[in-house]
């Protein structure tokens, strides 16, 4: 953890909003140009991960707790798969977005936005979960080593 490095802390605080805005830009621009949920999700997760690397994983978990991350992973998949089921109920093939609006073209717009939202949620939270699990594991291992050391010292 780099709590003492003033330059990094200031720069990261300045960068964070920019990264998150860029993630949202990539997310919503993905319908017309290069971009989409995958890239946006990774970018958004990168912002939180960067924050966690500079200010400590505990601080990052205050912003996005593990519990929320673990709920968001399946939620995104459900949104994606549920969109497909919705199109089935509207009488079209699985994942055909056309019936979501009055005109098929508009329906495709709506559908891809919802699906990409699902992708964004799952990808961002999966990236965070991987970071938390690996990062947290090291902390837990350190704690265990510390406790073992203390016990050894007392003995």
């Amino acid at each position, binding site marked *: 953890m780099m709590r003492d490095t003033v330059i990094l802390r200031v720069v990261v605080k300045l960068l964070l909003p920019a990264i998150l805005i860029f993630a949202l830009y990539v997310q919503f621009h993905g319908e017309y140009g*290069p971009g989409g949920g*995958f890239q946006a999700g990774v970018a958004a997760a990168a912002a939180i991960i960067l924050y966690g690397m500079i200010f400590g994983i505990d601080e990052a978990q205050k912003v996005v707790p593990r519990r929320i991350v673990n709920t968001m992973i399946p939620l995104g998949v459900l949104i994606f798969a549920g969109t497909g089921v919705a199109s089935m109920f509207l009488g079209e093939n699985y994942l055909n977005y056309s019936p979501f609006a009055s005109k098929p073209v508009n329906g495709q717009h709506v559908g891809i936005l919802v699906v990409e939202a699902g992708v964004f949620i799952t*990808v961002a939270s999966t990236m965070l979960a991987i970071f938390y*699990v690996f990062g947290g594991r090291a902390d837990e291992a350190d704690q265990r080593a510390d406790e073992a050391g203390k016990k050894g010292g007392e003995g």
Partner: protein
Amino acid sequence: MTVFLADLNYWVTIFLMIGGLYIIAAHGNMIKKLVGLSIFQTSVYLLFLSPGKVLGGTAPIIAPGFEVYSNPLPHVLILTAIVVGVATIALGLALVVRIHEAYGTIEDDEVQEMEAD
């Protein structure tokens, strides 16, 4: 030489493919094996992306004034393959962490030695 340069993509693909496989086979360290696996998978990305480029074509976004577009399909496929690769490496590394906790080593031969007795 021109033949070599014209197919540079494919030479790099072959180099990465064989290099990755060699690392997987030759190294006993579990992390290094995963690095090799990652390199091996990367060669596939290049293999798919190379034929998708159309010479003189632009990015596949419909815009006035452009007639020739590169093939967007390999990019979509490889985006998926990259996600699969990330998941594989993450799971592999998680297993290595657990193996380290259970055995105290991540060397293949040492683990096998411990299991032998």
